[in-house]
């Protein structure tokens, strides 16, 4: 029963129309960076918002910002997604991945920046891709990423710096 009281007093009055308008593009972009292709990004965005909607009473503002909670759901959805399937790379990018390891600069030349970035992100570790997706997809600050991931802010900065460096070398 005391738990119920805590939920009662800490329940966030959420304006869902506002949340939807503001967070939909960010969550969608998080998955674009996380997974690469639009279809998966749309599927996972749907899953995230449906879970958030169904679990809206579980959101506790004492646990942090609403976006942090939302991205916890999003990141779990991404993990479930990768667990559920073997790595799948869209056909048009598969050839690019196959040749990327040899001469990335030459082989990716001529491709659009988006396609190049999508492919290069797949070469990062899962953790690095997660942080890049939070930073550049969801446009979160390093501090918010630290809250969302449990890493220290300085650690987030270091990992992101190295990940960007790795992308730069392969670009």
């Amino acid at each position, binding site marked *: *029963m*005391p*738990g*119920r*009281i*805590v*939920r*009662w*007093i*800490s329940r*966030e*009055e959420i304006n*869902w129309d506002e949340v*939807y308008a503001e967070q*939909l*593009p960010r969550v*969608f*972009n998080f998955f*674009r*960076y996380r997974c*690469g292709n*639009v279809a998966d*990004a*749309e599927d996972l*965005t*749907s899953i995230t*918002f*449906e879970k958030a*909607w*169904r679990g*809206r*009473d579980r959101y*506790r*503002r*004492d*646990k942090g*910002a*609403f*976006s942090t909670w939302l991205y916890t759901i999003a990141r779990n959805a991404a993990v479930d997604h990768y667990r559920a399937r073997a790595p799948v790379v869209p056909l048009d990018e598969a050839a690019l991945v196959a040749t990327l390891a040899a001469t990335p*600069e030459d082989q990716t*030349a001529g491709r*659009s*920046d*988006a396609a*190049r*970035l*999508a492919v*290069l*992100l797949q070469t990062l570790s899962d953790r690095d891709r997660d942080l*890049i997706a939070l930073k*550049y*997809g969801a*446009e979160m600050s390093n501090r918010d990423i630290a809250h969302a991931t449990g890493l220290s802010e300085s650690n987030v900065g270091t990992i992101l710096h190295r990940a*960007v460096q790795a*992308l*730069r*070398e392969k*670009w």
Partner: protein
Amino acid sequence: MASEPNLDALRGQPDQEFADRLRARLRQQPRGRTRPARGVLTKLAAGVAVAAGIGFALTIPTVRAKASSFLALFREVSFVAVPVSPGEVERVNGLDLEHLIGDRVQVLEQNASVDVTSREQASQASGFTVVLPTVLPEGAVQTAMSVGGRNVARITADTTRLKQVLGALGLSDLEVPDELDGETAMITVSPMVLTGYEQGERKASFIQGPMPEVLMPAGVDLAQLGEIGLRVLGMPADEARTFAKSVDWRTTFLVPVPPMATRFRQTLVGASRGIVIEGPIRDPETKAEKGNWNLLLWSQSGRVYGIRSTMRLSDVMAMANSLQ
């Protein structure tokens, strides 16, 4: 290196048709305070089950108690505020309680809340005489009134699962007697009346109703149960044991003070003792402070009352003292 990577290259707006389709799908799902009763009760029951289940300790070997020998708890209560650290909140919230003990919770009765338009309707629907504040803050108006449904659940103790919960909470020093296995507790949540008020952007929710009843098998060591509850809330072992033995658990209601609260204290509403918890309202995104919230809880004549608000505390106290 050919050039700097374009790290913004993948960012864009989702397809409008996709956005509209998802929004429509979400809107088809129920929302608002008439959330499914089972969810409320299951969570409530699960929370109680953890506290009750891991605290069950029968002081007599015969545990085949009949319903007539059950103890009725919490008929009259005093509130005791227990500060909870962020770490404890994280630990408890991190447990998947529904998975751990959800199948040990049987919902016997569930009823959704209903909106009403008058005090008379609320009294009729709730089964008790509803009182309302006769004094409201300047410019405040009543905006909503609803009556929660009666919900009843039975929880069956499962010592294996309870040990898992204890272990997950890092409380493995607390033992769960094997004799508990299969014992049941009954929780009844009577209809509560919720009234909403608005004063410009400030809001208040006033809740009133009978105390929820928890019926447990005769012989339960309530002090040990209370000790477990306190430990779950993060109180150190020695302190929890001493405190648990010093209070009457049939009439004591623990109120965890969440980490977001900045202060709490005892107060008087008329002649009844209550507690006030206060804290800042922060913008969910920027975390900038944009006001204060307060919670006033008190009990009188077998009923519990609470006002959660973003109004001034002095106004809230005036409302509480003017109930008729």
